[in-house]
Structure formats: C-alpha cells, structure tokens
C-alpha cells in the first residue's frame, strides 16, 4: 500500500501547487478536483471507503461542479496579474514558509518516530459515521444545517429582489 500512498500524496501536492500557479481559472478548478480525488484515494488506502466515496460525491461531484459551472458562465479566460499589492508579494513567501514550518513541527510533535503507526483503524463505515453524527454530534450537525439554510435563503433574497 505504501507505494500507492506516495503516488497519490505526491499527486495531491503537485495538483495543489497547480491550483495556485495556474493562470486560467478552469485549470485551477480542475487541479483542485485532482487534489480532492487523490485525497479520496488516501482515505481509501486507510480503509475508510465510506469517507472516500462521500469525499468524491460531495466535493468533486457537487461543489466543484458548481465552481466549474460558474467559471463557464462567466467565461473567465486567462487572468492578467495585477501589481496592486506590493505587501502581498513581499510577505507571501515568508508567511508560507512560517506556515509550512509550523505544520512540520506539529506533525513531528505528534509522530516523533517514523515507525509510528496509526492505532487500529476505527470503524469508518456508514453505520458508525451515522451513529456518531446523530448521537454524539447531533447539535453541531443541526446547527450546520441551519447555517446552510440561512445561506440558501440569503442567496435567494440577493438573487431575487422582488419575491
């Protein structure tokens, strides 16, 4: 399984870089889909089939379709770089390095030796996820759904001035 993990981990990182570096919005969106699908494969390798499939359905199949649809509707072509923010240009690289360092440190703290293995994989099937979601985490779940409902209502009000 290890070689598969490295292949898809590398693919995810390369595609993530491509999301940032591409100038054409559609290419960025497509790269992001590659990132999401590679992550799904990593979940699959960890034995979490349900999570992997849900990742593809929700992110790649629903959310990114909307992204691509909007890009198509706006017919956004290649972006021209603007020279507006000098601050961002000078601060970007150092901040990125700080963030990466922080991330590495966090991972290193948690898993000091390379041989550390994950504990016995918890049951990540639909039944277990459902039980957790509707028993232990029912309040956050419902709050999130209300949040989404509010967002939908807001979008409708914004789009339709007169109801």
């Amino acid at each position, binding site marked *: 399984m290890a070689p598969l993990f490295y292949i898809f981990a590398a693919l995810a990182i390369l595609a993530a870089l491509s999301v940032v570096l591409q100038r054409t919005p559609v290419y960025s969106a*497509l790269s992001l889909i590659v990132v999401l699908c590679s992550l799904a494969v990593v979940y699959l390798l960890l034995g979490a089939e349900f999570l992997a499939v849900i990742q593809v359905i929700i992110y*790649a199949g629903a959310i990114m379709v909307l992204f*691509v649809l909007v890009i198509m509707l706006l017919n956004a072509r290649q972006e021209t770089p603007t020279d507006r923010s000098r601050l961002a240009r000078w601060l970007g690289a150092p901040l990125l390095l700080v963030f990466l360092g922080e991330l590495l440190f966090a991972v290193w703290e948690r898993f000091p030796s390379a041989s550390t293995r994950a504990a016995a994989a918890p049951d990540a099937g639909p039944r277990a996820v459902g039980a957790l979601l509707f028993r232990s985490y029912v309040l956050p779940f419902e709050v999130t759904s209300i949040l989404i409902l509010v967002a939908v209502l807001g979008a409708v009000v914004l789009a339709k001035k007169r109801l």
Partner: protein
Amino acid sequence: MATGSDMPLLLLAILAKVGVVLLVLLTTVAYAVWLERKVVARIQSRWGPYLVGPHGLLQPVADAVKIFFKEDIVPTEVDRIIYWLAPFLAFSLALLSISVIPFGESLTIGGATIHFQITDLNVGLLFVFAVTSLGVYGVALAGWSSNSKYPLLGGLRSSAQMISYELSLGLGVVGVVMLAGSLSLREIVEHQRGLWNVFVQPVGFLIYFTAAVAETNRVPFDLPEGESELVGGFHTEYSSFKFAMFFMAEYANIVTVSCLATLLFFGGWLGPVFGPSLLRGLLPIFWFCLKVFCFLFLYIWIRGTLPRFRYDQLMAFGWRFLLPLGLLNVLVTSLILAWRSV
C-alpha cells in the same frame, strides 16, 4: 488476503475478470445501438439497418470501422488540453462504474470460487453515484473547451440538468438502502429474496428511473444535445474517434443505469433456478441479463414514444415535483420502518 504463492494467480484472475467484463460491456454497448436503430425503426414503420449481415447484425462493426477512419477535425479556437481530456474522461468514467456491479452469485468449479463481480465494495452503491457525479465533467468541459456557442450552451444545460436530477436519483434509492440496511449491492439483492423492491418501493423506483433517464441525457430529457436548437449540443465540435467516445459513454451509462435498476428494484440475479449444478450457477446470470435487456428496451421504447421536454419544464419537473416526491418517499419509508421496529 491471499498468501504469497496465490498472488500471481489471483492477479491473473482479476485481470481476466476485468477483461471479460469490459468486453461484454463494450459488445453490449455496440449492440444496444443496433437494437435502438432496429426498434425505433419498427416504431416508425421503417426497416432500420439490414444491409450489413443478416438483419444488419454486423452494422456495429461497420460503424466502428467507419468512425475510426473518419477525419479528426479539431477546430482552431479550442482549448487543446481540455478538449482532449473531456471525451476520455467521459468514456473512462462510464466504464468505471461497471466494476462494482454484481452479475450473479458465485460459481464453484473444481474448488475455485468465481464471484461474478469485479470487486465487492461495501459502499458499492455510493461508488456508482460518485462516478456518476463525476460524469458531468466530461460533458461540461467538452462544451466549454470547444469555445463555440452551441457546445457551451449544451454544456451549461447538461451541468444544470445533471446536478438537479442527481439529487432525485439519490433520494429515489434511499428507501431501498433503508430497507436493506446496507450500501452493498450484493446485500441489497439478497434482501429481495422474498419480494422484489419494486413492489415495496414503487414510488422510489419511478423516481429513480425518471431521474436516471435525465441523468443519462436521454429522450425526453436530452436537452443537452437537443439537435433542433443546439445542433449537436456539447459534442458539436467533436468528430471521428472523440465523438465515438462520447457516444459509447452515453450507451455505457445506459447499461450501468439499467444494471443498477435491476439490482436495486428487480431482484438482480434472483429468479427460478433449477437443473444440474452448472445450470444452477449460470441461470442467475441469465435472469440478470434478461432484466437488464428489458430496461434497455424500455429506454428505446421511451425514446420512440415521447417528445422532448422544454428546458424550463425540465427544471420545474426536477425541482418542484421529483425532488419533493423523493423527500416524501424517504419520510414515509422511514416512518413505516420506525413504526415497525417499535
């Protein structure tokens, strides 16, 4: 898990299985086209293909040869990478979902057990939906990358349509999943040993099948390519082999959807089994194929009978009728299940 010495043999068995399934699927696709031309011709009082081979049976071969040797025209203004990517994406995704479809029970010959399925994923049903939900990219990207008016409109329409009907497609089968208590296609079929799901979940079946016809962009929901208004829709600018890939993807999707309808609502491979042991092993596959064939025929029948929807009718039907009906079906099913378990 296989031991070390079994590994090459196991790999060979898997490869053989993949090869056989792909071969059968592609042949079915080719002859589904032939069947469609024949049946639609019957409906319209024509003969259909009859020159190449008896009853035109070799027509698919002739078509394949012809389409390979056609000139491949690439318009100058297209976005090259995505223009190439789109048909491959559509075609490979269409082939991918067949990998979790079980065709029958297992057969034991001389100590070796053959499962009639490439892989038995415990979330098989969701896997098919995941692959279907990615399928929209093939169409949308083809429309966008062609850089031309009609394909763009076709691509936009199809994205909107597929997103809208995906919801109903999912909601239609939730009832079946609740009844079986599993997302594994094999277990869902086994659960129907007493009574087929179509009798328990008739509304779910109607929702599923309607949404499936829309999801595969078929008449009466074939707005994305509606030739009377959009020339050829998203694949207007495609020719030769790349066009053939879209064409094959469409029919492969129809086969998958028919397989799924058979598995979820019509008991899959279940049916009367009798005779010697070999016949006992093979009859389930026969029942499965027969049921899938009936669905393919139904698809063609619908195409020959119904006119195309108008675009706003299509959207209104999906969101205002099919989706609420699906939600209601889920609600009623879960209430009955909860009441029974009390």
